[in-house]
């Protein structure tokens, strides 16, 4: 299917007929209708986000007096300071990074090895291993929870950063191997054959030829995996208990318990918590979307 699209694209560039036709199809009325439908719908869609922004800068008195559905009487940026210091969000944010970055490194390095082996070597069990990785990544987490909890306890990892780092690193190997294996399959084999004739070892081929070529896929996976691991709630609930080690997801849940009626503080906290993934999405949107579509299986 990819081939037909590209053939079509190149033809379009050659005769330029389609460009013209496409433009002619978009008459002003249709364009106006398009915006008239999309913009109000999007605004309604984003109401929860607007309300979070507005509520986060209001004072508690203002909320109780004027209800949730009004403009702030004055802007209170100290809600953010309160969430950051008293709410403990500072430590939670640091913890999230301490967990996410090493987990990302583990899963990407190991799955690129696995992806290379599964894409480039024929051996018995290749497909079985491949489908084990894919199938495992689709399991409901509950089937892993009790044994993973026990294993973490046995290895003395429970209630440490390492429990989360290793579990996320290991679990995400499934999805990443799936994506990388299919990506490496699209690299023409001649590149590897040429390197092999030159006497390069397989590991050197992997390091010098494969890694540079799969950089786009690694970038896409990094943005996606960063978001997933950073946003994980369930495993943080199971594997970490100490407040000082909680990542920002379970941290926010405790902050919510602490400031039970103070929605302004809660919302200031949620806004701080989403900053890293939102920045990532804004700047690396293209990679993020590529990662998701690659993950949906071609």
């Amino acid at each position, binding site marked *: 299917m990819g081939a037909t699209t590209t053939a079509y694209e190149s033809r379009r560039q050659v005769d330029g007929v389609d460009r013209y036709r496409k433009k002619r199809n978009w008459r002003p009325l249709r364009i106006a209708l398009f915006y008239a439908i999309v913009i109000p719908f999007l605004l309604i869609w984003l109401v929860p986000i607007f309300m979070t922004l507005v509520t986060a800068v209001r004072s508690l008195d203002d909320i109780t007096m004027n209800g949730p559905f009004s403009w702030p009487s004055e802007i209170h940026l100290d809600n953010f300071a309160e969430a950051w210091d008293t709410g403990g969000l500072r430590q939670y944010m640091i913890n999230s990074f301490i967990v996410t970055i090493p987990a990302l490194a583990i899963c990407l390095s190991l799955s690129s090895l696995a992806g290379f082996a599964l894409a480039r070597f024929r051996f018995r069990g290749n497909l079985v291993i491949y489908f084990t990785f894919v199938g495992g990544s689709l399991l409901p987490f509950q089937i892993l*929870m009790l044994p993973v909890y026990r294993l973490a306890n046995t290895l003395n990892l429970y209630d440490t950063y390492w429990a989360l780092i290793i579990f996320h690193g290991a679990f995400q190997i499934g999805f990443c191997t799936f994506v990388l294996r299919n990506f490496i399959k699209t690299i023409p084999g001649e590149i590897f054959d040429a390197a092999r004739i030159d006497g390069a070892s397989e590991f050197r081929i992997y390091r010098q030829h494969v890694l540079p070529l799969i950089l786009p896929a690694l970038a896409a996976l990094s943005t996606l995996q960063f978001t997933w691991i950073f946003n994980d709630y369930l495993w943080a609930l199971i594997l970490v208990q100490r407040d000082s080690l909680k990542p920002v997801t379970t941290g926010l849940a405790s902050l919510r318990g602490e400031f039970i009626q103070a929605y302004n503080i809660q919302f200031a906290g949620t806004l701080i918590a989403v900053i890293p993934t939102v920045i990532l999405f804004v700047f690396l949107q293209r990679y993020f979307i590529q990662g998701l579509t690659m993950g949906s299986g071609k």
Partner: protein
Amino acid sequence: MADLSLAPAAQSVSAARKQGRRWHKATPILFLLPPLLLYAMWVIGPMFYSVWMSFTNADGISRQDFVGLANYRRLFNDDIFWTSFFNNIRWLVAFITIPIVTGLGLALLLNNDLPGTRFFKAGFFSPMVVSSVVIGIVWSWMYQPYGLINEVLAWLGRDGMPIGFLADPDIVTWAIIAAGLWRQVGYVMLLYLAGLNNVDQTLVEASRVDGASTFRSFRDIVLPQLQPITVIIVVISIIDALRSFDLVNIMTRGGPYNQSNVLAQFMYIEAFNNYNMGYGAAIATILALISMVFIFTYLRRMVKTEIDY
């Protein structure tokens, strides 16, 4: 390798080749060993261990004994199990209908290069970037008796007591599902946009030249070409619906009186709050068995494309 150069020529060549072949055979194993070990230890092994635990009376303190099917017998007579199970069915039905219709609609609408389209796509997709904890907190607040949604309804002219979205047993599950859908629609839209990218435009144009209406060329040309991605979206949505946990845990913890419970949350409470680990493992096993039906459907499709290679 170095000592081979001293050996007689013919022998060295065949030895090197043999060694090379052996190396070649060993390489994939060396590459696969570290990831596979870690994966087996933290994913595949635990999966089987959970199934084993479901046949025991594990409680984390006393000795773990084999009890046969006792946990399953108890499970099928447990009202909370059935409530949770049917709530999962609600999640599933909602997840395979609304996001697919809305997501496809949005994808068709936004599949153009007018100014601003990129921004609109990002807007609809943005809830996917935010963690479910944040979504749970914000939506819980919107559902409050004097929260945003009740205020809007009152403003639109609704009289009477505010609706207790998270307190009314008839509404609560749907209220949580709505928050989940808010997140899912953008994702499905994105997958459909990728699918539309692969639709063969020459066929669409040919049909238009032949006088087909927009609707007919959509139904007969575009829709059939979107069938493969739709199957993937349905399977992914089902798996996501069965995984639903975060929002339930944050918004209601399954309450009131388990009316919004789902299997994942039920399992978590039994295993980690009530320390009925054997029982929790049985719930997890049932949940996994249901998921596996769909995981295997997905994998079977992939096996087919693998053989086509």
